[in-house]
């Protein structure tokens, strides 16, 4: 068993964090050149844990080292992908790993200011983080001339106000600047022109919290914990009818079967696995048979036709109606579409209407093909990935559970 790197129990306080070697990596990083820090992170094969999986070291290296003026580091803590609840747990159990990771990242990209953009509903979590930041500032880990190195870094939390789209990194920047959270057209990418038009790196909570261990023990050590191009450990959040739902930190490449049977104690009595959404609600669904054979890492899930995403593993049992669940998702994406791009704004609403007809028993068989073709028509045609996040579940649900959609179209509605 690999020891937990991110989730260690009872290290919320600064003293306990020190006892685990906390803030030693920061001292080490302050003695390194920025390019050396980035190189170490590149070697670790750390990839973005928010969902997109972009290589972290590469992302940092895209900030031009010679750019004049301000640069910013932003932590994306706008956790809102249905099925995902790892960042909240990480913030509450190990806030200093995030703060230390941010200070090291800021050092690597030359940022003097950082913001943690946290979802508006996490009011208590924001207060908790503010306390941890105050503790860190009192010890000289944040602020001016950090540990006598001459490096300055100020860090603030910034609460959102209820908009799923702000988890998309450029919508997040718009929101952080005090605008509606509508994604920006790229390029320019945030590394060149991000927050307040300055070079900016945006990383997920879990990504940044992994950085101190990488600096402490080396990129190669971290990479070896995982498999192939998927370095390190990942937080998997399991919800649904299992005996022990919750957040589990496991090496990438762990078999789904082990997560379900060993960590989660299997399905609840009387419940039979029907399907799994492996990486948050935006990722294509897997049948029970597909899931049983899959390993949980970026490459294996892509090969299985889905995605690792955020690590939000949603377990679905055979008493659930797939049409009804898809309707729940369509209602969500329709509500959360920012309205900027026509295929998304109109498409999400259209899909929800078709699903409403299927649920009410007023749909025809042609509606099933219509559902698929509307979804297909939405993919790759919008500024951000929200349209695809709606379309991919629709296409996978319809393809893999067509029988249930056929039954609804024939008027056999589940009534649940």
């Amino acid at each position: 068993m690999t020891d937990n790197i991110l989730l260690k129990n009872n290290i919320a306080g600064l003293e306990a964090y020190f006892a685990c070697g906390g803030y030693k990596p920061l001292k080490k990083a302050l003695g390194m050149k920025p390019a050396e820090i980035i190189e170490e992170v590149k070697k670790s094969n750390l990839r973005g844990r928010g969902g997109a999986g972009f290589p972290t070291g590469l992302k940092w290296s895209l900030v031009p080292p010679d750019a004049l003026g301000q640069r910013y580091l932003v932590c994306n803590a706008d956790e809102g992908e249905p099925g995902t609840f790892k960042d909240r747990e990480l913030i509450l159990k190990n806030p200093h790993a995030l703060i230390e990771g941010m200070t090291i990242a800021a050092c690597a990209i030359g940022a003097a200011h950082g913001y943690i953009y946290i979802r508006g509903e996490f009011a208590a979590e924001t207060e908790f983080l503010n306390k941890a930041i105050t503790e860190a500032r009192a010890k000289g880990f944040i602020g001016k001339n950090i540990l006598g190195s001459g490096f300055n870094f100020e860090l603030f939390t910034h609460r959102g106000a209820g908009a799923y789209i702000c988890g998309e990194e450029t919508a997040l920047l718009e929101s952080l600047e005090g605008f509606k959270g509508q994604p920006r057209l790229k390029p320019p990418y945030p590394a060149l022109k991000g927050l307040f038009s300055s070079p900016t790196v945006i990383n997920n909570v879990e990504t940044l919290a992994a950085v101190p261990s990488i600096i402490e023990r080396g990129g190669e050590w971290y990479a070896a914990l995982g498999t192939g191009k998927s370095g390190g450990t990942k937080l998997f959040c399991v919800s649904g009818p299992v005996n022990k739902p919750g957040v589990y930190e496991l090496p990438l490449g762990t078999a789904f079967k082990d997560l379900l049977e060993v960590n989660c104690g299997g399905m609840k009595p009387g419940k039979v696995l029907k399907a799994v959404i492996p990486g948050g609600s935006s990722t294509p669904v897997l049948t029970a048979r597909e899931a049983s054979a899959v390993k949980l890492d970026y490459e294996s899930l892509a090969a299985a036709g889905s995605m690792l995403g955020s690590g939000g593993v949603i377990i679905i049992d055979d008493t659930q109606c797939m049409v009804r669940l898809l309707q729940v998702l369509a209602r969500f994406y329709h509500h959360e579409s920012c309205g900027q791009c026509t295929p998304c704004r109109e498409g999400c609403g259209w899909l929800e209407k078709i699903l409403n007809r299927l649920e009410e028993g007023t749909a025809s068989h042609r509606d099933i093909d219509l559902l698929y073709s509307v979804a297909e028509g939405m993919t790759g045609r919008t500024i951000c990935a929200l349209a695809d996040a709606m379309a991919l579940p629709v296409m996978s649900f319809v393809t893999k559970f067509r029988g249930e959609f056929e039954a609804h179209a024939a008027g056999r509605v589940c009534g649940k």
Partner: protein
Amino acid sequence: MPFKLSDEFKETAGHICARYPRRDAALIPLLHELQKEKGYVAEEAMDELAKFLELPYTRVKAVTTFYTMFNRAPAGKYHIQVCRNISCHMAGAPDLLGHLRTRLSIEEGETTSDGIYTLSSAECLGACGTAPVIQVNEEYFESMTLEKLDALLEDLKRGRLRAGAL
């Protein structure tokens, strides 16, 4: 109704604005502050905030209406929100919502005539491992059942809003 930003508000606002290179970046945090004081963000408050930040009123209105957390009318003393996304749905959120509709005799989006309760459904609250989840004002109540919901309502009736899982 005339609306004036309080001195306390202006002092807090000054500290918040100082965190950003541009004052208008503080717009969302300041809307949170306004809502904390009054329970909602009134039209007149948007107008005053726009003047304070030297922004057009339309910008403040656009932002206030874009984000779901800002109430534009007074909400009840207790704003009960039931998460209805996929994990909570599977764990029984529709039953919780139905139970609340019956117990409070209101529909989603409505407030009881005594001004005590507002009922809403919410999208994923980010606590799926302890589904189903209910939020009352800023507190989370997790792994809810109909029995626990009745106990919560009993607490609220006595004016007690106890912290959830945190």
